[in-house]
């Protein structure tokens, strides 16, 4: 109980660390959450655009309306750096300038060059197909009056290729869940490991250690108590994250089989994180080294395993390197759970393989930890 009370006191002093990483988790997921949650049909991705209509004709209005219908248009002041910033930081993918005389030229069947600002992302490519489709169709009716072209174009554009979603899953909701649980890799490896290390290292200080060595309490019992405290902290943190997930992702997704598998995945990663933190406090005595290692592991693994950047952006040799990290298998499982529909042996095979790698790494850390602990226990 003494160990627990002391542990709790240290955790209370550093509770802000856990709060901070939790805030990051919620904000990150909120910013990256998918629209159209609960949607079981095809929902077209809406790239973000900005439209500046200098023409004001019937046709330019129809084009602007068409773009607004198919994209997420943003009102961004065109003066200053705001527009460049928005393109640079990918807040806007595509900016369309409809020049004066656009409608007139189209009506006459003349070429009308459209000025755009594109950040060359997939979103900008998508925006371009939307703009060019409207203009191509409109031009095909020329020569004709602007009003007629506008109405004929709008009528023809109502025809779209029918799309059927093969899956019956709430893919948008699961995509948000994937973001949330992927970012949890960072929150757990930084926040939880940080909190555990801080609390545990308090018992490893030279003076405290000396006092413990001369006390009647065995080194093994202290270690066991600390392990229990660490587990309680981990369970508490995981519970908070799961409850927050209910708000960020939605209960229907969390309580689906896929959602529950993501929760299970996070539990397995948390067990790994607890063993990692415990080993770290046994191996590293200096605080600076501890902080640097935690940051390198949490940020580094999150970057190269595809938390902060999509995995397809990561080069092959880095992906090969990432295979040595349990985070890779945790994130791969989240990716699988986001689309998994059949829960048979064939489909669950890769999942079980990923679980076994993380569990194997945890067991390895526990073995190393017990060797180090025994060695340190003998040192007294």
């Amino acid at each position, binding site marked *: 109980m003494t160990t627990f009370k002391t542990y709790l006191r240290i955790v209370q*002093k550093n509770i802000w*660390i856990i709060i*901070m990483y939790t*805030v*990051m988790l919620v904000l*990150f997921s909120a910013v990256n959450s998918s629209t159209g949650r609960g949607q079981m049909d095809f929902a*077209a*991705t809406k*790239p973000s655009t900005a439209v500046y209509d200098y023409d004001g004709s019937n046709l330019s209005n129809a084009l602007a309306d068409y773009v607004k219908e198919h994209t997420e248009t943003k009102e961004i002041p065109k003066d200053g*750096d705001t527009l*460049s910033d928005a*393109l*640079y*930081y990918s*807040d806007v993918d595509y900016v369309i300038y409809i020049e004066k005389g656009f409608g007139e030229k189209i009506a006459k069947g003349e070429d009308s*060059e*459209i000025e*755009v*600002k594109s*950040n*060359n992302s*997939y979103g900008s*490519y*998508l925006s*371009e*197909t939307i*703009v*060019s*489709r409207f203009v*191509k*169709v409109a*031009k*095909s009716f020329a020569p004709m009056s602007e009003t007629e072209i506008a109405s004929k174009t709008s009528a023809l*554009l109502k025809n*779209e*290729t029918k*799309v059927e*979603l*093969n899956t019956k*899953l709430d*893919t*948008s909701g699961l995509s948000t869940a994937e973001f949330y649980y992927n970012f949890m890799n*960072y929150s757990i490896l930084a926040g939880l490991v940080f909190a555990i290390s*801080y609390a545990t290292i308090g018992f490893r200080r030279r003076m405290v250690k000396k006092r413990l060595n001369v006390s009647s309490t065995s080194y093994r019992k202290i270690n066991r108590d600390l392990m229990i405290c660490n587990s309680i902290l981990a369970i508490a943190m995981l519970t908070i994250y799961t409850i927050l997930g209910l708000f960020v992702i939605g209960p229907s997704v969390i309580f689906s089989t896929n959602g529950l598998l993501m929760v299970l995945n996070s539990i397995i990663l948390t067990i790994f994180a607890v063993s990692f933190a415990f080993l770290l406090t046994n191996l590293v005595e*200096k*605080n*600076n*080294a501890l*902080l*640097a290692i935690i940051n*390198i592991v949490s940020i580094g693994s999150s*970057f*190269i395993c595809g938390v902060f*950047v*999509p995995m397809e*952006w990561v*080069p092959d*040799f*880095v992906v090969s390197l990432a295979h040595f990290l349990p985070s890779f298998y945790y994130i791969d499982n989240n990716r699988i759970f986001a*689309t998994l529909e059949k829960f048979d042996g064939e489909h669950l095979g890769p999942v079980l393989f990923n679980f076994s790698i993380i569990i194997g790494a945890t067991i390895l850390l526990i073995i190393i930890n017990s060797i180090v602990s025994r060695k340190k226990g003998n040192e007294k």
Partner: protein
Amino acid sequence: MKRLFYNLKITFKNKELIFWTFAFPIILITLFYAAFSNITAADNYTAPKIVAIENENSKLLPVYKQIFEKVDALDVSFENNFDETKQKLEKEDIIGIITFEDDMSFPKLIIEKNGTSQTIVQNIMTEIELSIRSGKQFDEVKIKNTYERNQEMAMIEYFSLLAMACLYGAMIGTKSLDKSLANMTASGKRIAVSAISKAKIVLVSLVTSYITQLIGLALLFLHILFILKIDFGPELPGVIGLTAVGALAGLALGTFVSAAFRVKEDTKDGITTGFTMLCCFFSGMMGPSMKFVIDSAVPFLNKINPAALLTDGYYSLTNFGAGERFWTDVILLLVFSGVISIISVKILRRQKYDNL
């Protein structure tokens, strides 16, 4: 000068602090570099793979086949077996399946999940359908892109890492100042009862920390420029200058943490790291769009966030030159450093202890 030399010697004797403070950003930027070395290729469009299922009874399939040959934006292949193709779709080897009904029915697109690539395929398919429906061949549209991204997306990450390195240097400042504080170290107690000017000691500690930080950042720059070969363009001197200002903000932060928080050394390190990571998060380290979201929703937050000021300074300098925006960032950074330094001095002044 002599005091400065000895202080530097003491600081560099703390090998663990020096190694990790210097090595941490170097290791991290190397990982960033590795993770982002493919980012330009990722930005380039690659045609989505789709499979069209053959149907002899479809009258539109031959028309589509002819059109597909001319469309570079789609990578279309033809298969007979729907079930096998569906498995490919479920494994996400392909983006979609196009099925043709009998006679003149327009094809249907089957996808596994919603997404950008799937929407692109649907858009292209729609355009083909519209062309067939209207019975006209659409002319190409002239589109002129007047925006040129002169920097890769990865630069945002490098900027935020430089900002992090500047603020992380606060740890050196905290450690150095803690040595002079009577409530923190034994040497601080000795200094408190000695006849030496405390102001001088504190000043020397701060100068030592700043020099140490600059040495660490110089090593980071050498790594960035000569090993990773990251190009900052013609504004490199400005980037280095801004980093020196950033180091000053880091030093001020370290001083503030040391003076304002009467907690153990470990906790001070935790506060510095936590604050730095939070600042970096809001400045876009974990996702560039976060900075723009904060800039749009809570602009004041990033005006007092040293990491965001630094990343914005680097960005504006390398994109628009040393204009008003860059200098505003520099001034705000200096104001941040000045304000928290004044608060630190206020806290540190006339500290007396009855017992320790």
